[in-house]
């Protein structure tokens, strides 16, 4: 078992799939010799440059996604990197209106096996942090994935590359080069899309999280255990669309309390969907309010001091848990 960062794990999965599947090609800005912004295609140029399977794209996000989707409809399996999630907002004509609907609208004659890699989240980059993923989960037919650790990243990326639907793969800039962890050596190791992971079992309160919030939720859980003997179950969604509602509902059945945390703005964030599902299907299990812990509805402040106060930290999650228990 090698120890890899999230970024390395993603690149490893991509590399091993490219070796066995000639239909995969990659299209993105500066992903050739430059290796990708934040080295998201590290080492692949050296290996594949003579095959034409790594294309440096111009600043033309709409056609990058359009050409990726078109090539996918014609039997290829493109990986398009849009450098940052905010830039995906430039190509939502295709993404929201069309690519998730192709399979149904063509009577199953066409599919769109397209993987869109993109980055977001607060991190060393000091910009492009905004998490607009709720936009993507509001339409049918698209899968949205966000790993929080290297093993998941590898397994999810490999699944994405074997998937017959458009997948938007979100890479968190604060995590992707952060911590190394062991990943399986198996070139067929996959984690199916649509399956959440219980990162910490617990019996008192369910915390639903993703991306950067997973480790914060875990720390909050440890602290709550130590300070108040409150035992939190921490769920990492991993796939945000489609949601793994069974895992969430089962957990709430056990705990009776739900806290949802994400880095996106609270209003209109994807946590609303989780809350709505539980308030409908899990209502009888709920013993207290569903609490969302997320940033306020204002632009992310630039100053690092303010940015740190803006994104929910362990304390904010702990406070949320207390509120869900009616203790605050």
């Amino acid at each position, binding site marked *: 078992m090698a120890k890899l960062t999230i970024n390395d794990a993603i690149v490893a999965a991509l590399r091993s799939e490219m070796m066995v599947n000639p239909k995969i090609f990659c299209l993105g800005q500066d992903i050739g010799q430059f290796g990708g912004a934040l080295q998201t295609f590290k080492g692949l140029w050296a290996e594949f440059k003579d095959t034409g399977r790594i294309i440096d794209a111009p600043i033309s996000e709409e056609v990058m996604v359009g*050409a990726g989707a078109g090539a996918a409809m014609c039997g290829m399996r493109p990986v398009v990197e849009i450098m940052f999630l905010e830039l995906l907002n430039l190509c939502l004509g295709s993404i929201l209106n069309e690519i998730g609907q192709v399979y149904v609208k063509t009577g199953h004659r066409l599919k769109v096996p397209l993987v869109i890699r993109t980055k977001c989240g607060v991190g060393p980059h000091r910009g492009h942090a905004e998490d607009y993923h709720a936009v993507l989960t509001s339409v049918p037919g698209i899968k949205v994935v966000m790993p929080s650790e290297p093993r998941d990243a590898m397994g999810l990326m490999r699944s994405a590359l074997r*998937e017959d639907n458009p997948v938007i793969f979100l890479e968190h800039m604060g995590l992707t080069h952060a911590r190394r962890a062991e990943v399986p050596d198996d070139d067929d190791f996959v984690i199916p899309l649509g399956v959440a992971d219980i990162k910490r079992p617990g019996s008192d309160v369910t915390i639903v999280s993703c991306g950067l919030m997973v480790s914060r939720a875990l720390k909050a859980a440890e602290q709550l255990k130590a300070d108040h003997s409150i035992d939190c179950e921490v769920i990492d969604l991993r796939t945000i669309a489609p949601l793994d509602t069974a895992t969430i509902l089962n957990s709430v059945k056990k705990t009776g309390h739900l806290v949802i945390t994400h880095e996106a703005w609270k209003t209109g964030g994807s946590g609303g969907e989780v809350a709505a599902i539980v308030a409908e299907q899990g209502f009888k299990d709920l013993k207290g309010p569903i609490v969302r812990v997320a940033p306020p509805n204002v632009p992310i402040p630039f100053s690092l001091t303010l940015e740190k106060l803006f994104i929910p930290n362990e304390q904010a999650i702990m406070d949320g848990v207390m509120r869900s228990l009616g203790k605050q």
Partner: protein
Amino acid sequence: MTSNAEPEVSVRTALLRSLIRARHFDRVVNKINPGWHPATGEEAIPVGVFSGLRPDDISTSHYRSAMVASMIRGGDVKRMIAEVCGKVTGTNRGITRIDLSGEMGENHLGMLSGTLGTPIGYAVGAGLAAKYKGEGQVSVVTFGDGTINSGIFHEAMNFASMLCLPVIFVCQDNQYAISLPSSKSVAGSISKRGAGYGMPAIDADGNDVFDVYNKVQEAISRARAGQGPSFIHALSYRMGGHWAADPANYRPKEEVEEWAARDPIALCSARLIAEEMLTSDDIAKLDEEARNDFDSWAEQGKADPLPGAEEIPTEAYAPSRLV
């Protein structure tokens, strides 16, 4: 083949036949839905562009004429008309608004929502796929004079040129985007704009099906030979309103009359008669045959059964191949 050479006799007759069938197709469909968009007067463009492709080439049609394009590419007309009627016997059992795309599949793409422009991106992707496959396929796409003002046109032209993709871009210039004349909306000239992307930019007479056909065929030859994309500006005129019921009183009568004199079916017929390839009787027969076919398909479509609730799909995702 140069643009002065004429297509062979059989091809020329087939082109006329397609022109005639295109008009009947429009006729019946726009009776079923007068909110839709006839291409009367512009038929030489879809017919000239999409005839003569290899079966594995990929066509992506402008919404106006999309079902005609599909027909030429092998789409099932009867099924399309049933889909237009919203019937379970239709191409997609009544699920899809088919007039904007025709029957889609690996050799024919089209509009997948009500949004203009995005198909140009898909066509570029089809060209990219063709390049990877390396079997000489080309991707041919049409779009309106209004649509070239959308950003995707620019991105697509540059991208295809930069990567030397086998894509033929054809502007179906009917001189209007709803009520806005292209003389106002397109600053500069359309073909000059195409040339700005470092690819051949050619003007074609959009009412002369042979001219359109020839120029597209030349562009296809270049693309198959690895010489990259071309841009063709085919000038014609939208004889009717934006939709069938639009009186189009925002434009001068003289303009309409001037173009009425250049009807593409009449022009093509006259040429074939003058060259003694067909008689006016032959042509009347083609017309009669088409009229009967389309009328009967329309009747059938109207008579066919409606879809039941069970036809509403329960899942948008394609099945995952992972277990």
